[in-house]
């Protein structure tokens, strides 16, 4: 008989599901099937996935729903119903544990509100099972966001945190960790007295400690006001409790205590700055990097939050040999996604400022792992690898030494420019942007990889972040290259595209496009000729942009471009003169006078260099230009600048004035 056959093989999934769904078998048998199911899937990802595909979750949720609505039973019947509630809640929790597809199925089947009702169940075991399950759901990003700003929700949260049941209090803390994101939410939680309650949980069980540390980190993160409340005179004790917990015997507690302290110190430059705590944090995390489990997977991320943009912390980490430990991770993890991502992120942070770190990383042969990491299945790993490469290549010394001139890196990195994930694309562009400054005249490695064509296409992207980065990379590619290479760049890009990038709606794109032009026209007279041509359209586009912008960076790059053009022939100089002596719209001043009077000394410097190039004594038409400049009031303006507060401006103004005065006698 088929039913008895399946009951003899409780491991066969189809039979088990059949029994859960059957209306004709006794509830006792359903309870047994629930238990079987739960026991099979606990800790077994493969089984979970198999049962998910068979639609086990809606079946279990339906049983939970029926049992929950059959409240009010008495005696044995109540006990039986409670068991069904407990077993179905446990099975649901297990499906949700560590598997996003499981969480999704659980939420789709409507389990969430049912589990919430279990928390207030009279039977403590039922409440406990509900809380455990919800806690597991709240470990996933897919869990629903809890709205703290609704008064009744805050009351409910406080009731959870005040519960005597350990799992219920931990659930409360997990809800905060998952849902607290905005400053407003942090303040609301703080004002509701949550911090005090969380601090009291630090003295509880392991799970309460852990949940509380994680929530405290979330409530304080990036919020100086909440941090100061935590650090206030009454809570000095709280801080000491957290500091004590970085020495706890449980690795996860140590990790979360570090996370909490880092959250506090990152809100202000005055918290936890003494060298003792700094090196303790580094040393605790260093040890946790070696943890073989989840703690070791998360440790590099916590380390990253400790050292990112903090040169002093990076130096302490360097001195503690953190780089060696991270590199060991690369040797031993056989590319597990999460740990690999964290490792590259932390290595990237270490390489962001300090040359000693970059040297150590390169000596550790990290680059040998790059080729494989760049084609990893996980987009997060690919992005982290690119970010690492960007920071590691932020070194003129190593770029000059050709440390990144390696096809095994360049080829897969260039391919990432077309990654399906935008963050990977942007990160790959960032890395290539640095690496193309390879200080060779022909940039042969990158040109051979076809980078030019890719960058030109990306410079027309609709995503402004990609457009900026692509033009930035083109600018770096054009830095001090041979005339032949410049011609290749312009011929692929075309003057028309260059002109349209100069007038892009984004100021940051304009700035990069102007500095790309600046590099293209720095070279022989032929370079200037090739880029500017005879029609002067590009110079006109530059002048127009300079007239219409107020952004200092755009003005500076534009003026240096004009200055480089003014080092060309008489026609080039004439085209520059026209732009500089133009008044835009209702402007009472010319572009040149406005730029000379700018409050930004860098713009004043660039403008005076342009004047110097326009008035070089041995150019045939200088005398005509001097007459025009004199009439435009340039000489009196320059006289005001011979004591400019910026030394560079002052010296150049004197030089320009000297050149102008050589022709001055004829004009006065």
């Amino acid at each position, binding site marked *: 008989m088929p039913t008895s056959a399946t009951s003899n093989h409780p491991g066969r999934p189809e039979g088990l599901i059949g029994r859960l769904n059957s209306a004709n078998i006794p509830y006792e048998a359903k309870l047994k099937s629930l238990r079987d199911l739960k026991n099979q899937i606990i800790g077994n990802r493969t089984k979970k996935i198999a049962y998910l595909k068979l639609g086990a979750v809606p079946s279990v949720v339906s049983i939970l729903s029926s049992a929950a609505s059959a409240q009010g039973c008495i005696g044995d019947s109540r006990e039986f119903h409670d068991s069904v509630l407990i077993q179905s809640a446990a099975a649901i929790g297990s499906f949700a544990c560590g598997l996003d597809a499981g969480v999704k199925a659980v939420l789709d089947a409507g389990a969430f509100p049912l589990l919430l009702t279990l928390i207030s169940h009279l039977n403590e075991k039922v409440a406990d099972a509900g809380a455990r399950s919800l806690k597991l759901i709240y470990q996933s990003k897919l869990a629903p966001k809890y709205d703290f700003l609704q008064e009744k929700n805050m009351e409910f949260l406080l009731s959870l945190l005040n519960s005597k049941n350990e799992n219920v209090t931990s659930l409360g803390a997990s809800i905060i960790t998952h849902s607290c994101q905005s400053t407003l939410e942090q303040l609301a939680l703080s004002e509701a007295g949550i911090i005090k309650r969380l601090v009291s949980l630090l003295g509880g069980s392991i799970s309460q400690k852990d949940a509380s540390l994680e929530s405290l980190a979330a409530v304080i993160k990036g919020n100086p006001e909440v941090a100061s409340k935590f650090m206030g005179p009454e809570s000095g004790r709280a801080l000491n409790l957290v500091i004590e917990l970085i020495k706890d015997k449980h690795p996860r507690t140590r990790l979360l205590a570090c996370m909490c302290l880092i959250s506090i110190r990152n809100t202000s430059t005055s918290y936890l700055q003494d060298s003792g705590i700094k090196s303790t944090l580094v040393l605790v995390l260093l040890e946790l990097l070696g943890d073989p489990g989840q703690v070791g997977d998360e440790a590099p991320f916590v380390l990253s939050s400790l050292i990112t943009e903090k040169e002093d912390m990076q130096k302490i980490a360097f001195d503690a040999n953190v780089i060696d430990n991270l590199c060991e991770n690369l040797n031993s993890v056989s590319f597990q996604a999460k740990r690999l991502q964290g490792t590259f992120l932390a290595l990237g942070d270490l390489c962001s400022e300090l040359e000693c770190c970059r040297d150590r990383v390169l000596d550790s042969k990290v680059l040998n792992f790059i080729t494989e990491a760049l084609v990893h299945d996980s987009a997060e790993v690919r992005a982290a690898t690119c970010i690492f490469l960007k920071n590691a290549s932020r070194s003129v010394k190593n770029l000059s030494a050709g440390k990144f001139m390696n096809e095994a890196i360049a080829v897969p990195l260039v391919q990432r420019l077309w990654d399906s994930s935008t963050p990977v694309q942007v990160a790959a562009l960032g890395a290539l*942007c640095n690496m193309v400054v390879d200080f060779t005249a022909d940039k042969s490695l990158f040109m051979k990889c076809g980078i030019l064509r890719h960058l030109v296409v990306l410079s027309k992207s609709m995503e402004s972040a990609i457009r900026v980065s692509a033009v930035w990379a083109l600018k*770096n590619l054009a830095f001090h290259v041979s005339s032949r290479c410049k011609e290749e760049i312009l011929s692929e890009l075309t003057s028309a595209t260059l002109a349209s990038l100069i007038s892009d709606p984004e100021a940051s794109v304009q700035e990069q496009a102007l500095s790309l032009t600046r590099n293209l026209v720095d070279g022989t*007279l032929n370079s200037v000729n090739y880029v500017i041509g005879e029609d002067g359209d590009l110079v006109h586009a530059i002048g127009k942009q300079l007239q219409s912008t107020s952004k200092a960076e755009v003005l500076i790059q534009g003026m240096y471009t004009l200055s480089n053009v003014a080092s060309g022939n008489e026609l080039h100089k004439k085209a520059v003169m026209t732009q500089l002596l133009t008044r835009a719209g209702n402007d009472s001043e010319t572009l040149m006078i406005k730029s000379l*009077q700018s409050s930004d000394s860098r713009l004043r410097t660039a403008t005076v*260099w342009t004047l110097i190039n326009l008035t070089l004594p041995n150019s045939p038409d200088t005398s005509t230009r001097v007459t025009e400049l004199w009439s435009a009031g340039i000489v009196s303006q320059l006289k005001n600048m011979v004591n400019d507060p910026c030394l560079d401006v002052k010296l150049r103004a004197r030089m320009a004035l000297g050149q102008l005065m050589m022709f001055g006698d004829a004009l006065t």
Partner: protein
Amino acid sequence: MPVRVVDTSSPSQVSGTTAGNTLPPPCTLLSVGQSFSGTQNVSSLQKDEAWRVNVRIKGCDLDHGYLCGTMEALNVPMADTPVVTFWEGEIVDTKNYTFFTGKWGATAEDDIKHWTKFPSFPPLLSQVEVDGGKSLDLSNYPYIFMRWKEQYFVNVGPDCGLTIAGFYYVCFSCNDGSINGFYYDPNSSPFQKLELKSNNDEKSGFRFSTYELQ
């Protein structure tokens, strides 16, 4: 435009209360991409024995007092090709670095002996003797003092028979972009003089390229 009139012929000493910038000023002639040409006298006695030298600035980070570039020696007797080295520079900015080297085998006495060979240094001497120049305000001084230390050979192996064990005391003039330097290596002939001029000249005009690392 109203401007502040200051006498910049000599550097001032920072008083205890004045904060603000006392670092050497940024100078466009010492920016990335700028190149210089000149000579290095290999012996201080025989003026004729000089190598032609080209220098190009490749990196500049004023916040960290850092400058780097390449140096190409053209007629080196022992080498078949020009020898290119990569150097890193410390800018004496009184914040990151003082006039005292404190390494590379140079004593404070060696430092003073070399710095005083630059005509622009004497106005600073008395203060440098006190504290290495830490309290000097160099923000308006038209000379920038540096140490350049060669780090590796770019185009030849380390066994090429040449040494880069020493370093250069360098003085850059913001006025005309000229560079003077003295090589210091206890094992080489003393006071080998480096003299360089900015390659921008008044015939072709001044050009400035740029790159930025992300």
